[in-house]
């Protein structure tokens, strides 16, 4: 089912692909202080965002966070209440959707039910008045790209969900748009097919050298496909960064909590100097030390966020040099095959800590079991200090 493998020659380019770090780079798409209100409801609240050429950009957030509205404004289906959207330096205000050099792949696929697969793909080309031989060649090319050549004369209802998704993709790519917008493109597929298609999308984007903007509520999907992710909540951008940065350096409690699992220890700063911050966390009944350059005054309310896989757990006491020790009792165990997730209740408190361990061997001499007394600790650089 896989599309042709990505040209590996692009590997190094992708590795060092980071135009957003280059101050001289001119972004392809600019949202400038964009606001969209529906009556009293503010769907998009003062969003400024730059997206660069050839970037695979993801808008991530829960439903109703404004990500789809932001995309629809770029496609031209909604007009911003205020602010400006430019594409390749051109202000898009007043340009109707049928004159914008962007194409969209719809969540429902929106295939025309009364047209065959080939007619669906040719629809956009026909609107441009492309000559027939050229149009036929392009349709054939698109069918080959999505591996649907034998289905050209079928109607959409004669296709499976995965095939329909491919037709929708081929149709939106047929005009070779500057930007391809994908609105929850894989939501209707089952997990296995979805993962496969994510990799295909990435390969396709690299091969065609296009700019992709994807809207999704699935953080794994966003992290898999995207060069950069914008996390949105209540119409605002919360954090815009690479998947690695979003996961390892969330800038607030919301992002830390939304992406993956995390342990949050609420507490107050007791001292901050020499790149080390010490804090006291009553809810875990412990004092922690963490590496942080943040300028913090003693007494500041913060949260220390530690990912479950960065916590160490053992039945034996930790080595003497271990930092941030805790003791607890195993409350629950979830065996997931590749990982085992332990929920551990910290001694003397109601705090539940989540710890995950990679199952690197097939058996363990004495595995950690229910109600076991265990020792927990984590390195000073394992956690992130969150202020907001």
């Amino acid at each position, binding site marked *: 089912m896989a599309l042709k493998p990505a040209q590996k020659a692009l590997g190094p380019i992708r590795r060092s692909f980071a135009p957003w770090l280059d101050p001289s780079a001119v972004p392809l798409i600019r949202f400038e202080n964009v606001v969209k209100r529906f009556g009293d409801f503010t769907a998009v609240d003062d969003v400024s965002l730059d997206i660069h050429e050839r970037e695979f950009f993801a808008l991530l957030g829960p439903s109703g966070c404004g990500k789809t509205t932001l995309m629809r404004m770029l*496609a*031209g*289906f909604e007009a911003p209440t205020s602010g400006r959207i430019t594409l390749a330096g051109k202000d898009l205000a007043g340009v*109707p*959707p*049928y*004159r*914008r050099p*962007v*194409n*969209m792949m*719809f*969540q*429902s696929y*929106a*295939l*025309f*039910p*009364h047209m065959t697969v080939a007619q669906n793909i040719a*629809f*956009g080309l026909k*609107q*441009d008045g492309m000559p027939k031989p050229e149009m036929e060649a392009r349709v054939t090319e698109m069918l080959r790209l999505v591996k649907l050549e034998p289905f050209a004369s*079928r*109607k959409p*209802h*004669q*296709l*499976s969900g*995965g*095939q329909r998704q491919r037709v929708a993709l081929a*149709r*939106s790519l047929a*005009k070779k748009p500057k930007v391809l917008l994908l609105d929850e493109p894989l939501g209707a597929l089952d997990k296995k097919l979805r993962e496969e298609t994510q990799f295909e999308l990435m390969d396709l984007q690299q091969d065609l050298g296009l700019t992709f903007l994807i809207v999704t509520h699935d953080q794994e999907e966003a992290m898999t496909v995207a060069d950069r992710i914008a996390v949105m909540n209540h119409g605002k951008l919360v954090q815009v960064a690479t998947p690695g940065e979003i996961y390892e350096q969330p800038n607030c409690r919301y992002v830390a909590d939304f992406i993956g699992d995390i342990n949050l220890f609420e507490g107050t700063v007791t001292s901050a100097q020499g790149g080390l911050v010490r804090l006291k966390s009553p809810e875990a009944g412990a004092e922690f030390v963490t590496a942080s350059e943040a300028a913090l005054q003693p007494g500041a309310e913060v949260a220390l966020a530690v990912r479950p896989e960065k916590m160490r757990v053992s039945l034996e006491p930790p080595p003497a040099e271990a930092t941030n020790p805790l003791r607890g009792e195993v409350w629950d165990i979830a065996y997931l095959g590749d990982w085992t997730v332990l929920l551990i209740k910290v001694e003397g408190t109601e705090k539940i800590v989540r710890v995950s361990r990679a199952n690197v061997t097939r058996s363990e001499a004495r595995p950690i079991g229910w109600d076991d007394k265990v020792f927990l600790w984590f390195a000073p650089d394992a956690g992130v200090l969150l202020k907001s």
Partner: protein
Amino acid sequence: MRNGLSSINLVALTFGFAFLYLPIVLLVIYSFNASQLVTVWGGFSTRWYVSLWHNEQLLEAAWVTLRVGLISATLATALGTLGAITLVRMGRFRGRTLFSGMVYAPLVMPEVITGLSMLLLFVAVGLDRGFFTLMLAHVTFSMCFVAVVVQSRLVSFDRSLEEAAQDLGCPPVKTFFVVTLPIILPAIVSGWMLAFTLSIDDLVISQFTTGPGATTLPMRIYSSVRLGVKPEINAVCTILIAIVTTGVIIASIATKRAENERLRAERAAAAGR
């Protein structure tokens, strides 16, 4: 669970069908009656069908009915479709509730009132009653049925299809004709057929709004029945029944076929993934 019919069900079914179809069967049988008297069987004959062919009045009435039906159904379909589009697509404009109420009012209005009020209107504006007023009246009452049928289709119409068309470079008006219209066409066609059927069998409103020279078939049949049922009328009715039955059977076969075709295609798609 038994699949067969119990004796009670069988009796109920027999009576039910008898109530529905016995009169019609009798009518059909008597249309082949050789006797001049409607209630006396005088042997099999097709003479009334032959004499029907020479009855200028009835043929003229049938022609009027057909023309009124075709024209009024077409106009009603155009207006009803526009009304439905306005109701579904224009959002909440000022007076929307009033508008939708007025579109649907003829649906529940007693025919006598609709007929009478239209008669008063035609008299008031000095419009000579005849073919034209008859047609206007038919458009008025059948339009709302078209609006109902088309509206129910439009409500379930996926708007993203139109957005997709525009996104691919198709301007809005063209989008309506190449995407929206073909998809809602089945609803528009059934709206037209409904309007046509309503028009050809309307009696009450026609009585009020027609004038000399524009007598429809139902009016002609009704008036001749008042002078005593002639076997000729039975023949006309039998022909009408035959036409309607054929139409219904063809339509249901076509629907069934399309449905089977679709199911087969879907199954094939699911199996092939």
